[in-house]
């Protein structure tokens, strides 16, 4: 599980560890907390987002954090939650999203499906009520996928509380801004996701400390020599690994042109591609971008697959497992993978005529 970072850093790259105090865009330097200064010609910000339970009153400070309230996007949180699930002997499990955007928007759905399967496996599903509370108007952000995923929740007898924007946590009750209340015995929440605090200190961020960028080139709107990659930017796409991966493929070619003083010709299209584990050895796959929502069909080879889009199959689940190897051996070292960076309409089923 743990691998040294140095192994993935190519020769010729000087890897500096340190906490960033702030960036001074006018002086083109990064100030580290220990007083070191790093001068740059061009700066690429890739410090991601982090879950911030402190941003919801009563979540971190209400006495229930890691008692009956858990998150799973941190290592500590996931380990603590695993133990809580083992010890859980029935009651109301609430899966909850504070606000968008979140890292991997399908992960809370995936957790819900897997929790359902887990409690069935333990023969105690009838003693667990599962509620899915979301600030969105449905199970997912996009209509067709929302319908498919919503009916999967229905089939599993999971109730969905939509348009639920949490204001505070009162002990073991979620309270929304419009004064709805949801009690829980076990809460699995996705706290607010924010960019790093130094982004705010540097005057580079928006209200969530995300760096506003051009959504096709990832160049900062405020500074002509700063880019933001991955979750750190404000592009209107999923904060998902696939988005970071596909966007970086476009970015690297663009950056070479940019460094030569040439116009950047590559345009990132917001491509995202996510497996959704649905329990019992099956999974779904979704593939979409800025303009096209997830649609049913086959992927990556049109008509053949082997993967099915927006449909539960065992092969999708095996694809997810195979992806572990791909991640460490191809994606992370930057080796080419046989999937194009831009989304393709080939193989997707749509009622409307769509441009390729």
């Amino acid at each position, binding site marked *: 599980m743990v691998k040294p970072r140095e192994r993935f850093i190519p020769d010729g790259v000087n890897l500096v560890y340190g906490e960033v105090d702030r960036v001074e865009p006018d002086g083109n330097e990064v100030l580290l907390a220990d007083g070191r200064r790093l001068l740059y010609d061009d700066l690429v910000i890739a410090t991601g987002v982090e879950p911030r339970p402190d941003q919801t009153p009563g979540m971190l400070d209400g006495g229930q954090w890691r008692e009956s309230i858990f998150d799973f996007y941190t290592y500590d949180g996931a380990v603590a939650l695993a133990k809580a699930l083992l010890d859980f002997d029935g009651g109301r499990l609430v899966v909850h999203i504070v606000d968008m955007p979140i890292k991997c928007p399908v992960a809370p759905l995936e957790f819900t499906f897997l929790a359902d399967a887990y409690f069935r496996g333990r023969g105690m599903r009838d003693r667990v009520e599962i509620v899915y509370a979301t600030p969105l*108007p449905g199970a997912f952000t996009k209509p067709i996928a929302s319908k498919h995923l919503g009916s999967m929740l229905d089939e599993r007898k999971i109730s969905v509380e939509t348009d639920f924007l949490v204001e505070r946590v009162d002990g073991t009750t979620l309270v929304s801004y*419009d004064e709805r209340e949801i009690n829980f015995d076990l809460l699995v929440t996705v706290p607010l996701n924010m960019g790093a605090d130094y982004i705010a200190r540097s005057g580079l961020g928006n209200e969530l400390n995300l760096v506003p960028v051009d959504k096709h080139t990832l160049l900062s709107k405020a500074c002509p020599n700063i880019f933001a990659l991955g979750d750190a930017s404000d592009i209107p796409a999923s904060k998902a690994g696939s988005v970071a991966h596909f966007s970086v493929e476009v970015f690297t070619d663009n950056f070479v042109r940019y460094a030569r003083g040439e116009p950047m010709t590559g345009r990132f299209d917001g491509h995202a591609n996510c497996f959704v584990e649905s329990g019992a050895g099956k999974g779904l796959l979704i593939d979409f971008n800025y303009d096209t929502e997830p649609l049913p069909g086959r992927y990556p080879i049109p008509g053949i697959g082997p993967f099915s889009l927006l449909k539960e199959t065992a092969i999708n689940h095996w694809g997810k497992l195979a992806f572990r190897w791909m991640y460490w051996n191809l994606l992370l070292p930057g080796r080419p993978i046989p999937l194009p960076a831009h989304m393709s309409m080939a193989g997707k089923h749509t009622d409307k005529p769509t441009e390729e």
Partner: protein
Amino acid sequence: MPVTTIAGRDIHVDDEGFLTVYDEWDDDLAKRLAAQIGVDLTEAHWKAIRFLREDYPSQGETATLRRVSVIGGIPTKDLFTLFPKKPAKKMAYIAGLPKPHGCV
């Protein structure tokens, strides 16, 4: 792209009735749009609507509730009182801006 007639003018809207042309909007139209969804515009409503209008050209996206609260200085609780149930959607509708995509 559908065209509808409001207050004797042709207005471009999307499938859900959200205006698609920024400059086709004015105060008079806002009142009509508000009335259609049962909102009676007070000064407090206008403060939120004006923030959305002023924020949009530089951002290229309709402000989220969090942005209206953090940058616009209007508490989220108040937005739920002013525009009950679905404040983000209702504000965007009245302000003649695209429906905020709850991100993706």
